[in-house]
């Protein structure tokens, strides 16, 4: 390992204690983000991406609780508990470690100042009763200790930078006078203007049409290079991943099931779920014109399947997959151990030798993918 990661998430668990049961929305995920890097968090809707993003900033509201795990950012402990105990189905007794930041410290040192967030729906993310400028100015003032006038100048400059024409005039206008794409530019300006080290973008282009999405992605790539800000880019769209990400974490039902740099993920895929995601997207490098949507629906996060959570939909599933729950492990790679930065390719699938639990001898499993039975097709990203 050549350097310390900017953000390190280890075994993070966030659960929602609802009347119907405990929703294990994020169930022990680990990933790192290094400085200036664009890291993708991909998966179908309901995989736990948004919950993971909000958990990092400790913005989970009741009935959600971060029940376990560790999040460190620039040496500060954002989440960190002593041993946790509790009855299943009840929020556990949590004892925060000494060094874990207080709510006040999170607010004044982390949120906005070090980690900024961009939400999915630009139409809902701006307050309709304040001008766009006043919202920008308030957050810049707060997170960069600037005076009102300085913050204003900075806001106008940032609006210009994200490609909003006539920024002086637009500064005075209200959100309803902006289109969806323009609002998303405003929100990107807002995030960048606070000069954080990390921006978490939760499906920021999902609500936009394809042309506007393309423009926004180009803009983000350009600005990301210019400001050298690290990004966690949440999306369900492998196309977006291919376009902008350096490294990728694929999530399925609250878990990260594959972790690799973007080339290896696409050309040396290790996990059947990632394969299925890739098969479901149009690719210029594949000659077959046919798309293969992933079969079946993702199970509920309340009662996740035993063993490998993907076994109900995995084309390669065997008996053993129902029994053994694979953790995320480094998968040996013929050519090298990890990429140029020493970052390894990991996957959670027992068919790899790293697991050695008897996959080759195991009986194939009939399921939604292998034709045992068929449930409605789902494919994320139908626009």
């Amino acid at each position: 390992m050549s350097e310390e990661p900017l953000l390190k998430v280890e075994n993070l668990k966030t659960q929602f204690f609802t009347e119907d049961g405990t929703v294990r929305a994020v169930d022990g995920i680990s990933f790192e983000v290094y400085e200036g890097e664009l890291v993708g968090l991909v998966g179908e809707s309901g995989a736990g991406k948004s919950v993971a993003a909000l958990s990092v900033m400790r913005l989970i509201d009741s009935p959600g609780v971060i029940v376990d795990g560790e999040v460190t950012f620039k040496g500060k402990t954002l989440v960190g508990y002593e041993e946790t105990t509790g009855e299943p189905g009840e929020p556990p007794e949590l004892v925060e470690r000494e060094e874990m930041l207080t709510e006040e410290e999170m607010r004044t040192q982390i949120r906005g100042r070090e980690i900024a967030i961009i939400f999915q729906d630009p139409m809902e993310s701006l307050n309709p009763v304040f001008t766009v400028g006043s919202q920008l100015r308030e957050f810049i003032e707060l997170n960069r200790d600037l005076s009102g006038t300085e913050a204003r100048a900075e806001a106008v400059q940032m609006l210009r930078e994200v490609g909003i024409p006539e920024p002086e005039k637009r500064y005075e206008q209200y959100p309803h006078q902006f289109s969806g794409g323009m609002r998303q530019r405003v929100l990107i300006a807002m995030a960048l203007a606070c000069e954080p080290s990390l921006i978490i973008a939760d499906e920021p282009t999902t609500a936009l049409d394809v042309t506007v999405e393309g423009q926004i992605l180009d803009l983000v790539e350009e600005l990301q290079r210019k400001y050298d800000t690290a990004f966690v880019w949440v999306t369900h769209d492998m196309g977006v991943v291919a376009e902008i990400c350096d490294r990728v974490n694929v999530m399925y039902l609250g878990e990260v099931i594959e972790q690799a740099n973007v080339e290896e993920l696409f050309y040396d895929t290790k996990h059947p779920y990632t394969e299925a995601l890739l098969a479901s997207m149009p690719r210029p490098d594949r000659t077959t014109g046919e798309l293969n949507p992933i079969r079946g629906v993702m199970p509920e996060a309340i009662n996740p399947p035993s063993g490998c959570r993907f076994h109900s939909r995995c084309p390669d599933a065997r008996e053993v997959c129902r029994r053994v729950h694979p953790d995320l492990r480094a998968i040996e790679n013929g050519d090298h151990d990890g990429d140029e930065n020493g970052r390894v390719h990991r996957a959670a699938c027992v068919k790899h030798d790293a697991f050695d639990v008897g996959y080759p001898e195991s009986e194939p499993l009939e399921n939604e993918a292998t034709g045992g039975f068929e449930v409605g097709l789902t494919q994320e990203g139908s626009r």
Partner: protein
Amino acid sequence: MGLLRYTVWRCLQAIPVLVGILTITFFLTNAIPGDPVSIMLGPTPSAEMVEQIQARYGLDRPLHERYFSYLAGVAQGDLGHSIYYDVPVLTKIIERLPVTAYLVFSAFGFALLTAIPLGVISAKRRNEPVDHVSRIVALIGVSTPSFWIGLLLIIVFSFQLGLLPATGLFLPWADPANVRGAATQFDVVVESFKRLLMPMVALGTLQMASITRIERSSMVDSLQNEYVKLARAYGVDERGVIWKHAFKPAQLPVITIVGLGLSTALGGAVLIETVFEINGMGRLIIQAINNQDYPLVMGTTFMLGALYLVGVIITDISYAYIDPRVSYGEK
């Protein structure tokens, strides 16, 4: 400047409504059975006297002629002449209106000052004990008639405890010479406030309760908004999140309820003025009706209608002030 244009436009729109109010009051009043002349002159007046009086008040002319001359009069600020009091209607209204305005205005002040914090705290501490208590209080408030609250207050604070005077109300800037037992203006202010307290609470409780309810539910919704979460994600403190980012957009439904409450409160003032024997507009209307004093009935009804209209316009303008989409004509 969207807001200014909107304000002017809204005031112009009020003119036809005022004419409508005038027309309806005029014809309704004339449809009341009974005859003011016979009341004035007693049971067996002579024919000449009847004619003389009718001529004096223009009652001998046909209805439509009287209608148009009444409209013309009002346009010039002449609301007619009170038969019973024998003074211009406007004089009587100017004498009585300020007390009613003082009462209604204070009742709303009391309602807003208590309801807004209560509603917001209730929303913030949803389903906690504070919330349950405030919701029960609000429920009792909306379901208790104001005159009953008034009577209860009088029984407790005047008859039992002897703390507050039960009847009468005057303005804080009344002349000390006209107020019994008051030597200085300060005494007048104190006495005026003591007399205001009970009718204000009696009239304001319903408003307070309904504003608390709408404030709570509106804030509960508002706190779920994505932009409120965004403010929190950018490190805005809890006070700013609640009182700025969630509060301002949440006031739109509240304003609507306050506007609607104004008509209820004006109606309620008639009852409260009767209970507390306050010589305001409400009692004036009742006296005018009992005496079949047509010009006074029309004048006071029209005045209350106009007052309500002012309330509606203020509501609309505050609405536009908060929601830019209204002043820019997009909603």
